[in-house]
């Protein structure tokens, strides 16, 4: 079996700086020690392991960010998710490595070069620095990659040769062990491999023997392979704080293009997205963006999201955003539209989603009927549904415009009014405490409006609607 190891020494910093124009020295610091640097910082002489105080002396405008192992793990999982489209068997090696089994994939890509080209694409898109090496065993690939070999070796002999020349201190052994080996006068890995294993085991412990065995062992590591998540969930930390909701467009675009890359190969649509906005010194907020028909394209989602975000007032500056899907539905072709003569640009569902995102969910409604004799309860307005259930309408003539609250008439309709029909008595609702008892009349007032009036038992008159 053939293995490829990818090593990302600057994973968190690279992701943070990607697509955010920043050209000053910037370092990640863990326990007062620099752990990741950008190229500007390296030019100033800041190295991995430099103390924070010394680094600050080297550059006055140094930007210092805390190293977060959890965030880096998330980034590694996101990267694996993307690479999974190219390579089937993946192992995560936190915090900064990915192990890929290549031998099965070579047949598909017809050679190592095209396969490698496919793999490099997403890494370059994300602006990541990486080291890589391929070898006959997982550990050999890892050791060579971490040593910065950056070579794709196909035959075992070459890899073994490189391992032989590898200095002990860069072989990935722990500090104490490599010091012991160097004190024995063993400066390269080859010198250690040449010694009898049993003697090495007796003097330096079993760890070294296992290590040497694993260097030659080409079988798969004893842990589960990477399984992509079923639902999309991603978080993006911002280098700058964002104070206007419209400025969220650019970071959001990044997340949405990842969403598209997630949904498209699975032939899924997202029915809704939940956008999490993390505020500085304020509890975070969640914004729902809906699309009833489902959608996967980043561009459409961006349009919908911006409609919603334009309405939003940020409570505090935003330091990070996250995105997850709410409801993933299988992609279905729009076959109903095939014979439609007028090629619509949007479907009804897309139009409704767009309106809802701009105006709010309750501004866009459909009218539904209900079996009830009380006029104000015989229909209701609700959120549009794709499957509308038809309902039999009443046979009595009803006004097309109805007031939510009947308007009291100051006096009883006089001679100026013309009663056209009535009375129609509606007495109902005694079972649910909204009981009504009304005599309805259709009447025309002096201005020519055809009104729907009713009279209560207490001889009060109300205007309830118009036969518009």
């Amino acid at each position, binding site marked *: 079996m053939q293995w490829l190891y990818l090593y990302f020494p600057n994973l968190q910093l690279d992701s943070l700086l990607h697509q955010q124009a920043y050209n000053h020295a910037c370092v990640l610091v863990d326990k007062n020690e620099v752990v990741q640097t950008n190229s500007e910082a390296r030019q100033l002489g800041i190295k991995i392991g430099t103390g924070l105080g010394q680094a600050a002396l080297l550059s006055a405008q140094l930007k210092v960010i805390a190293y977060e192992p959890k965030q880096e793990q998330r980034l590694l999982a996101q990267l694996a998710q993307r690479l999974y489209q190219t390579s089937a068997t993946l192992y995560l090696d936190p915090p900064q490595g990915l192990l890929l089994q290549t031998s099965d994939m070579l047949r598909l890509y017809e050679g190592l070069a095209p396969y490698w080209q496919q793999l490099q694409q997403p890494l370059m898109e994300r602006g990541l620095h990486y080291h890589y090496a391929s070898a006959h065993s997982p550990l050999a690939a890892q050791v060579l990659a971490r040593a910065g070999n950056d070579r794709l070796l196909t035959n075992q002999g070459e890899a073994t040769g490189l391992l032989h020349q590898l200095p002990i201190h860069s072989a990935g052994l722990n500090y104490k062990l490599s010091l012991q080996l160097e004190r024995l006068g063993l400066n390269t890995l080859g010198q250690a491999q040449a010694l009898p294993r049993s003697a090495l085991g007796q003097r330096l412990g079993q760890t070294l023997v296992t290590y040497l065995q694993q260097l030659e062992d080409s079988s798969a590591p004893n842990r589960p392979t990477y399984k992509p998540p079923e639902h999309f969930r991603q978080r993006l930390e911002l280098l700058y704080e964002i104070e206007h909701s419209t400025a969220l467009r650019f970071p959001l675009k990044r997340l949405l293009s990842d969403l598209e890359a997630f949904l498209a190969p699975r032939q899924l649509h997202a029915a809704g997205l939940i956008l999490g906005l993390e505020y500085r010194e304020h509890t975070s907020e969640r914004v729902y963006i809906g699309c009833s028909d489902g959608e996967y394209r980043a561009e459409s989602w961006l349009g919908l999201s911006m409609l919603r975000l334009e309405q939003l007032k940020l409570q505090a500056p935003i330091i990070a955003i996250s995105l997850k899907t709410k409801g993933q539905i299988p992609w279905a072709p729009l076959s109903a539209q095939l014979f*439609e003569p*007028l090629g*619509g*640009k*949007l*479907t*009804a569902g*897309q*139009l*409704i989603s*767009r*309106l809802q995102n*701009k*105006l709010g969910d309750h*501004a*866009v*409604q*459909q*009218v539904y*009927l209900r079996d009830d004799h009380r*006029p104000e309860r*015989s*229909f*209701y*307005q609700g959120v549009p549904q794709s499957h*509308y259930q038809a309902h039999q*309408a009443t*046979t009595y*003539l*009803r*006004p*097309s*415009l*109805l*007031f939510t609250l009947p308007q009291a008439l100051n006096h*009883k*309709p006089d*001679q*100026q*009014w*013309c*009663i*056209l029909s009535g*009375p129609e008595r509606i007495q109902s609702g*005694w079972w649910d405490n909204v009981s009504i008892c009304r*005599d309805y*009349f*259709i009447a*025309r007032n*002096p*201005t*020519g*409006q*055809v*009104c729907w009036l009713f*009279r209560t*038992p207490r001889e009060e008159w109300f205007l309830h609607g*118009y*036969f*518009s």
Partner: protein
Amino acid sequence: MALLQLEKERLVWRARQLTGPDHRRQSSFYPTLDAHLQGGWPQTGLVELACGPAGIGELRLLFPLLAQAQSRLQVWINPPAELNGQALAQHGIDLSQTLLIRCQNPQQALWSAEQSLNSGCCSHLILWAPGLTAPQAKRLQVSAKGNQALMFWLHPQAEPSTGALPISARLSLAPLATGLRLQIHKYQGQWPQSSCQVDMHELWPSLAIPTHLPTHHGPAPSSTIAALPFKPR
């Protein structure tokens, strides 16, 4: 050649030629109105209806048309009261194709109207708005024309807005005993007509004032109104 094409589409017309119905109109299902409008409502575009007070029969004028065309959405924006689903269903309107939009401010209403028209999935749009400026009317007219939609703009003034709006038709409505009197102020492709009477008596007999009675002096005999005593429950 170009002129012939324009004439064929009635973008340019000769006064003497205007006889007979235009095939690019959709019937209003009111024979007298169809006759006056040379075939009915325009296929596409923006029509202004100055209704005066709500409830004189302005929607009954449109119901037969809306009941016929239901392959695409019919959008209602900002009606002056709640749209009664029972009444719409009675008049043959498909509620599954009916969308109701309520907006807080006029700008949003216009935005919704334009979005609905531009989506291409809306065949009729009815907007209640107090006034439109010429640029707004032009945008809606272009959107409606470009997307095969007919839009009605209803407002509560008795007279159409002053100033020449670039729209397909402008009419004002007034109540009559048996229907509506329509004043046609502008109609693209023909001379403005003086006025016409639309008889709704046949479709809604119970909403018309019986002919043997004087128009505005209904009987309203207090005896009939009070005839049914309420029994205490």
